[in-house]
């Protein structure tokens, strides 16, 4: 049940609970309880809206920053990550395998904003060895939704 609820609301968190219950062949109360329980357990961490800001005319830039760090005594990766993710302008922080350690996603109004964050806040940190900043030029797909075009039903209206 959990997995089915999650699979569904991962793509559409606005589904009516009554509808969701019908779709999954159960009752509304069970679905509501299960969701409340998952919120409590932190399985469900939030409900967000996927926005294509490019279509709004408001200026925003997103950057992916590769960060190399040296974990120091008593200061593991988690502690370093915390120092990074506590900045409100940081959107995501992932610990990464391979050539660098953290992938940090940050959103700013301008490229200068982002550059300033990197030079003033990120790079000066003691544990940070180096950074490489990549600006996102175009979002094609995010969270499973294609943003560049909307699909249309091209089937014939009636077929046997």
């Amino acid at each position, binding site marked *: 049940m959990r997995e*089915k609820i999650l699979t*569904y609301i991962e793509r559409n968190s606005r589904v009516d609970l009554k*509808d969701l219950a*019908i*779709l*999954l*062949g159960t009752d509304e109360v069970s679905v509501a309880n299960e969701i409340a329980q998952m919120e409590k357990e932190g399985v469900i961490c939030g409900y967000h809206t996927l926005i294509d800001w490019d279509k709004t005319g408001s200026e925003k830039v997103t950057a992916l920053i590769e960060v190399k760090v040296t974990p120091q005594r008593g200061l593991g990766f988690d502690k370093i990550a915390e120092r990074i993710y506590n900045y409100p302008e940081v959107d995501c922080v992932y610990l990464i395998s391979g050539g660098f350690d953290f992938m940090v996603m940050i959103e700013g109004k301008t490229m200068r904003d982002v550059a300033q964050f990197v030079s003033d806040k990120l790079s000066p940190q003691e544990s940070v060895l180096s950074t490489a900043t990549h600006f996102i030029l175009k979002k094609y797909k995010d969270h499973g939704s294609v943003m560049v075009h909307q*699909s249309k*039903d091209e*089937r*014939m*209206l*009636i*077929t*046997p």
Partner: protein
Amino acid sequence: MRNPLSDTIVNVKPSGIRKFFDLVSEMDDAISLGVGEPDFDTPWHIRDEGIYSLEKGRTFYTSNAGLKELKEEIVHYLKRRCAVEYDPVKEILVTVGGSEGIDIAMRAMLNPGDEVLIPQPSYVSYEPCAVLAGGTPVIINLKAENEFRLTAQELEEAITDKTKLLVLPFPNNPTGAIMEKTDLEAVARVIIEKDIFVLSDEIYSELSYKGDHVSISSLPGMQERTILINGFSKAYAMTGWRLGYACGPAEIMEQMLKIHQFAIMCAPTTSQYAAVEALRNGDEDVAKMREAYDQRRRYLMHAFKEMGLECFEPYGAFYVFPCIKEFGMTSEEFADRFLKEEKVAVVPGTAFGDCGEGFLRISYAYSLENLKTALEKMKHFITRLRNESCR
């Protein structure tokens, strides 16, 4: 000038869907619940394999019966999903959709005067194919009280000395009915006793919502008298690729291959390469789509119940078949008015046989949003009809 036409084909009635299609196509703002194909796109990895085969220049004929790898994958698939074993060399034929398989199986098996039992409501092509193959179609009218399953008794009553072939169209288009193992065992006993053959159209086999589909050919004594038809259209959302297959006893397949060889040459090569990928790596896609259909099926059933519309719970394909007899209209009148007054297209049950009178085929190969809008309109419509009849 002389009559240029064959009497046989002239006497075949055009598909009942045709008329309705013309009506619908004049309305560009109509919402449709009338399609008989998935709303999903073919999974990308399958499309990609088709594209790759084109890039590689694989644009030639394949051997008549189909690509060797594809036939082998089909054999694996049938063993895995239906517990039947076929010989990839002599018992499998890759066809242009399941439809071709239906046509050539009948042409390979029927002699003039042979009777073909066709349970209805069912897909529109069995009857004309039987006629074109020189056979005599004999209709078995399935009943709503049996949830449109074929019973042993119905079968037995329809069999005569001339009966040669039974078409077994389950999971069923348009009713969504399935035949469970016990149902199949009951009819299999009659089939074996009366020594007839079965053309089992299992194109919707992957869309079963009450346990796994059971193929009649997996029952003892049935494989040697069954032509199994399946394909990629419904399970993998590949309708436009036109690819299916037929499996059966070598003796029959040999003759079917002859017709296929002369009439078709081979199924489309690009589609065959894509289909290999579908069978190798497509199980997860099928499971996902099945789950989505199942959810919508439950949603529709619930909505009908709320509307007080009589409908048995279908466990297959992507159709529901509600009864509209309470409104005192024919299926066609209902569908006609529904289209004109609410701009929603559904297919009258009569398009699938006379015994579809009093029923509608409603497809749930649509997004939930689409279904919701259409159901809302349906609610308005039947409320209005009920009020009318009160007056």
